[in-house]
């Protein structure tokens, strides 16, 4: 059975090698896939056009947070869409996990279901990355008052109410923390479910550097001081 009230939002930046495969995997279960090509300089756009996914081209590179927000705003225009899924382009997420999370959000009265790497199995994560992610979770829980085990997982499922309120302003990787802050701010009901992430050589090579944690922390703290 295809789930027609779900929009799969995939921010894509220079993923020409894997994007087609990722999209086709998703399309077999979900008819609406929205790819935001975030100013890629390889032939990502052509690869997406070979599939049935919707392609939105950012004219310049804006960052992953901005790309997700663009996808949400596009999906919100279609009133039949009830659930929004953020999904990574590099193929590290599993469709079964998405289905599992959707089944949960349909059944239980929650606004958002977050994937957690630390509840589920994680394949090939380096010890340093694990330590940094754990520290990020502690920091995030401390500042938001939420109780999460993983603050920076790209796999999320949320309903329309949350999609309308999300308004991601952090264009870069800090958006993950911003989403958590929105959940705390609007008191959305949340649930974490275990997901399996496959850290393939490809995704590891593409993954963000640990040093980026410094940038993210600084930007978040600055945003606290500078009221918008």
């Amino acid at each position, binding site marked *: 059975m295809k789930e027609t009230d779900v929009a799969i939002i995939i921010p894509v930046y220079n993923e020409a090698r894997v994007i087609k495969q990722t999209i086709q995997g998703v399309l077999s279960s979900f008819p609406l896939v929205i790819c935001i090509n975030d100013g890629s300089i390889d032939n990502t756009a052509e690869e997406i056009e070979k599939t049935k996914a919707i392609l939105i081209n*950012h004219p310049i590179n804006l960052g992953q947070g901005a790309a997700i927000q663009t996808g949400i705003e596009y999906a919100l225009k279609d009133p039949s869409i009830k659930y929004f899924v953020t999904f990574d382009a590099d193929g590290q997420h599993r469709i079964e996990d998405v289905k599992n999370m959707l089944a949960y959000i349909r059944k239980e009265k929650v606004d958002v279901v977050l994937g957690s790497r630390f509840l589920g199995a994680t394949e090939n994560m380096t010890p340093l990355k694990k330590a940094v992610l754990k520290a990020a979770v502690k920091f995030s829980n401390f500042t938001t008052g939420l109780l999460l085990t993983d603050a920076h997982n790209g796999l999320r499922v949320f309903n329309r109410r949350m999609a309308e309120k999300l308004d991601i302003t952090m264009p870069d990787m800090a958006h993950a923390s911003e989403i958590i802050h929105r959940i705390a701010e609007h008191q959305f009901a949340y649930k974490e479910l275990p997901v399996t992430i496959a850290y393939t050589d490809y995704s590891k090579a593409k993954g963000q550097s640990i040093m980026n944690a410094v940038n993210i922390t600084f930007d978040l703290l600055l945003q606290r001081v500078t009221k918008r």
Partner: protein
Amino acid sequence: MILIQVVLIAAFILLLLKFLANPNSYQIKAWKKIIGILFVFLAIMAVLFPDLLNHIAHFFGVGRGADLLLYLVTLAFIFVVFSQYVSSKQEQKRLVKLARKLALLETELKSKK
């Protein structure tokens, strides 16, 4: 604590909170101009009466006029860097909104074809 320490620490904290909180309000813009004019005025005075700087420095508990100048320049530099950083972040947000609008419009046009 000597007077200059109090003045400098207070100035750092004030700059950070006040100016970062709302960099585009008309009050902040006015203060920037007042401080700018004051700086130029003081610079001219310092050129005309080199000893004046030393006197002011002594008043604040600083050994030499040149040292006082260094402190003030440092303060001004930090202020400029921070306010540039904040305003560039705001510019970035505007740019993101513009580019997103463009991307969504283009997609809409394509789907109508």
